[in-house]
């Protein structure tokens, strides 16, 4: 198939814009593949991995723009190339139109807005550290959404921030809520007495949404980035965040959510938390709870953490409604003895690992595939599968599944149609920054899967993370999924329990 690689020297565009551009070009007639990226080392490797190679590409520099096209004939390539030129030249983002009012650099912005206490950074990881350093040196708190920031740089930045009494949330920080204002991917939740610190974006989203549903609320939620609790980083920002919450008059109960903390870090944090004099709830993801002591309660799931915090904060409820909405569940034929394999398809990484742990704790064999499930290949192994669609091998060159559901919907269609699969389990994470209306796409994919299966039943278990205040409205999203035959649960843990019960043939317990 003919292909073409065009290099535009020194023409920088941000990745979100380029993704939109790539997608538009890929839809052009006769084009089978279109990749428009900056020629960073990583992107060049990506291009090579999909078969785009040229000497010119090898000598391209990080600020050069690469347009790589593959199509059915030269005319199609020609057309797409011209279309790309046209789109690039009429770049209509706000950046271009409001150019005069837009500061050209962080230094300029800091000079023009001396009152700004927070700098939010979502630029490519190789540059993010440099920008964050400038902000910290100017005495500003930083919300660092970018990932792929080298570990040594993270450690140096966090040391610098700690020395100046500043918060560095991130790198790889998905969520934060400060004084009720969400940053990154955050749900709109009631303000309330529970302060959260978390090294897991979706974990924080799940707990804050659940607190809202329980009638409680969140004072602040401080993200720390996924590596903060590693032995190397030593929980520098987790500790800083916890101390801030301990001193915060609006916070009566403290919640800590993190995945896989290093053992020595866990011990140190326990001693710190025990000395606060405020009730504390901890959820270490992917691990069973340790025994609680000295006012520090360890929960077994995100849901339990939210319920404990709600109880400690005197919320009107400390349990979620028992029943999942039963929805318009497709009737389970009694003669369908074995439901088949379960496949979990998750957008939230923490929710995926919590689901896997829940299924395993019920004695079910679960695998989390370390490579993508490709079309035309049989499903690996014989165990149930839990897939994190946010894994790098699914997201390379694409936005996160919480924003762009193309990959996940394709997996739902394909695996849902697979006769070996009988149960689908997935999450849906809402909030600012996420897909504006995700449920209809998922519902369509489910419908397609069902149509392909004919009469064989497909049981679908889903959870919706979010609130009725979110731009997508959690109730409306839930309604759409239910009409598509999914059983919707108020938490990811509960959806996993529901699916496990189905597989184990436990009936009528919660339905």
């Amino acid at each position, binding site marked *: 198939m003919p292909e073409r690689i065009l290099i535009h020297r*020194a023409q*920088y565009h*941000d990745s*979100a814009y380029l993704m939109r551009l790539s997608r538009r070009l890929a839809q052009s007639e006769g084009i089978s593949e279109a990749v428009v990226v900056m020629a*960073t080392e990583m992107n060049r490797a990506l291009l090579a991995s999909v078969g785009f190679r040229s000497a010119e590409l090898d000598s391209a*520099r990080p*600020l050069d723009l690469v347009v790589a096209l593959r199509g059915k004939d030269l005319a199609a390539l020609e057309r797409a190339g011209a279309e790309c030129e046209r789109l690039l030249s009429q770049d209509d983002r*706000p*950046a271009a139109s409001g150019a005069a009012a*837009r*500061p*050209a*650099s*962080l*230094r*300029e912005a*800091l*000079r023009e*807005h*001396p*009152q*700004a*206490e*927070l*700098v*939010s*950074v*979502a*630029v*490519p990881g*190789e*540059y993010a550290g*440099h*920008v964050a*350093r*400038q*902000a910290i*040196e*100017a*005495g*500003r*708190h930083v919300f660092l*959404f970018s990932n792929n920031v080298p570990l040594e740089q993270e450690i140096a930045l966090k040391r610098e921030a700690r020395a100046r009494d500043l918060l560095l949330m991130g790198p790889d920080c998905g969520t934060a809520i*400060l004084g*009720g*204002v*969400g*940053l*990154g991917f*955050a749900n*709109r939740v009631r303000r309330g007495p529970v302060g959260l610190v978390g090294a897991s974006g979706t974990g924080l989203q799940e707990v804050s949404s659940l607190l809202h549903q329980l009638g409680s609320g969140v*004072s*602040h939620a401080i993200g720390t980035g996924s590596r903060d609790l590693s032995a190397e980083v030593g929980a520098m920002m987790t500790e800083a965040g916890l101390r*801030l919450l301990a001193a*915060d008059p*609006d916070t009566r109960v403290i919640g800590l959510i993190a995945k896989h903390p290093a053992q020595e870090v866990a011990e140190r944090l326990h001693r710190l938390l025990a000395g606060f004099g405020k009730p504390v709830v901890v959820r270490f993801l992917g691990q069973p709870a340790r025994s609680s002591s000295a006012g520090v309660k360890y929960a077994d799931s995100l849901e339990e953490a939210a319920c404990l915090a709600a109880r400690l904060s005197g919320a009107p409820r400390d349990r979620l409604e028992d029943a999942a909405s039963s929805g318009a569940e497709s009737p389970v034929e009694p003669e369908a003895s074995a439901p088949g394999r379960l496949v979990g398809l998750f957008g939230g990484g923490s929710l995926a690992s919590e689901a896997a742990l829940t299924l395993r704790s019920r004695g079910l064999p679960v695998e989390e595939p370390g490579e993508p499930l490709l079309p035309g290949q049989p499903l690996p192994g014989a165990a149930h599968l839990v897939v994190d669609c946010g894994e790098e091998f699914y997201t390379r060159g694409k936005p996160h599944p919480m*924003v762009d559901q193309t990959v996940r919907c394709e997996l739902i269609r394909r695996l849902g149609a697979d006769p070996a699969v009988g149960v689908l389990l997935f999450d849906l994470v809402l*909030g*600012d920054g996420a897909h504006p209306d995700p449920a209809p796409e998922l519902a369509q994919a489910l419908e397609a899967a069902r149509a392909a299966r004919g009469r064989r039943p497909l049981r679908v278990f889903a959870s919706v993370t979010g609130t009725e205040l979110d*731009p997508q409205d959690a109730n409306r999203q839930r309604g759409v999924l239910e009409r598509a035959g999914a059983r919707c649960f108020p938490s990811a843990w509960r959806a996993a329990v529901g699916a496990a019960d189905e597989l184990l043939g436990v009936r009528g317990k919660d339905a």
Partner: protein
Amino acid sequence: MKNLPPENRNPLKIPQTVLHLGLAEVAQGARGAGVPVVEVDFVPPCGGDPRRMALLDELSRPALAARIEEANQQALKRLLTAQPHLVGIGRAREVVPGMRDDLFLHAGPPISWERMSGPLRGAVMGGLLLEGRAKDPQEAARLAAAGAVRFEPCHAHQAVGPMAGLVTPSMPVWILEDRGPNGADGRPRRAFCTLNEGLGKVLRYGAFSSEVIERLRFMAETLAPTLQAALEARGPIDLKTLFAQALQMGDEGHNRNRAGTSLLFRELAPALARTARDGETAARVLEFIHKNDHFFLNLTMPMAKLLLMATEGIPLASCVSIMARNGTDFGIQLSALPGRWFVGPAQVVRGLYFPGFSEKDANPDIGDSAITETAGFGGFAMAAAPAIVQFVGGTPEDALNTTRRMAGITLGANPSFAIPSLGFSGAPTLIDLRKVIELGRLPTINTGIAHREPGVGQVGAGLVTPPWECFHQAFEAFVAHAREA
């Protein structure tokens, strides 16, 4: 950078303002909550070069950054307090420091005859004819190649020259003095520049025909003594004040000097009428000035040179003190490292060509006139000169944006050079090497385009930038110097 006031330091509250860089979706929550979100443009720092990013971080360490900041403030203050005055005219051999009988000065960084471009060679040949050392161009070329004269940059002798910038011993030169508080050893600093020949076939574009040489003789024998007598009678002229007015009349001091030339004419005319040998001489001199819209360029250039000389020798100042081209190389110097050239290949000017000429006729960028941009006008004050915007290929909006963009790489503004179209804000002044490197943004220079063959002259005008090599080398050298300072 000031730290936040204490009441703003606790992060656990609604942010007053969020500065956001990158994916817009990430700030959607804050926007939705009604918090002002300022979108900041992001370009990968240092063009994405990890080594330079690390060096820049080194310069950003608080203790060093504070010292650099202090040095830069001192540099800016010295530039702003300099008071360049036109005090007289003299013969180069007698007034330019270090000038010798066998020395020719030229624009840009040092260069040998072998590497000289067409226009500079042509000017050297013309100079040898003017000085009576050669009978014809062939002999002139032979003598130049044989090393009959030595070549040194104007900048090594407190001088500047447009295009080829040739200064030979017998040429008359303007004498400027800094009457501000920055004098060295109790004596005022001086800067020098030849008188502008006008347009068409002229030595500075490499022309050396007999009309060129005759004009140069007229300038030495009639123009210079007449002007000198008028200046003596009138007294020194405050050039900064004069140029400030010209800027508000549509000049930017590099490619447009019509207002400045007119103002100078008004300053000189009465004294000239009184002191000229006769009416006809006065008329010929005034006519010469009147016919040359660029007459004042040869005063804005040494004025810029004097302003920048005031910044030289401040050990940790990160600003640029010279940008100059010889038609082959582009060279810059730093205020912190006076005398040390950082050199890269001169670029081709993007611009409009006179009918019958095109880019293939163009010589690479040439001349000391980029000293105007270095001092904070010329291309940096484009917003003040809408009339020339079309000539350099653009709209008035482009002119405003050029000045705004240059504000992003400079240390501060010069309130003396106020730009009406930007609310009378001062022209962006003193190029900060660190900002050029970090933002990947080169200075914009307005310039004329010389024909690549000697003797043809100007073929167009346009915009040009320095080559990155100059700034990359200068940056490495500055970091090494700052480590030891």
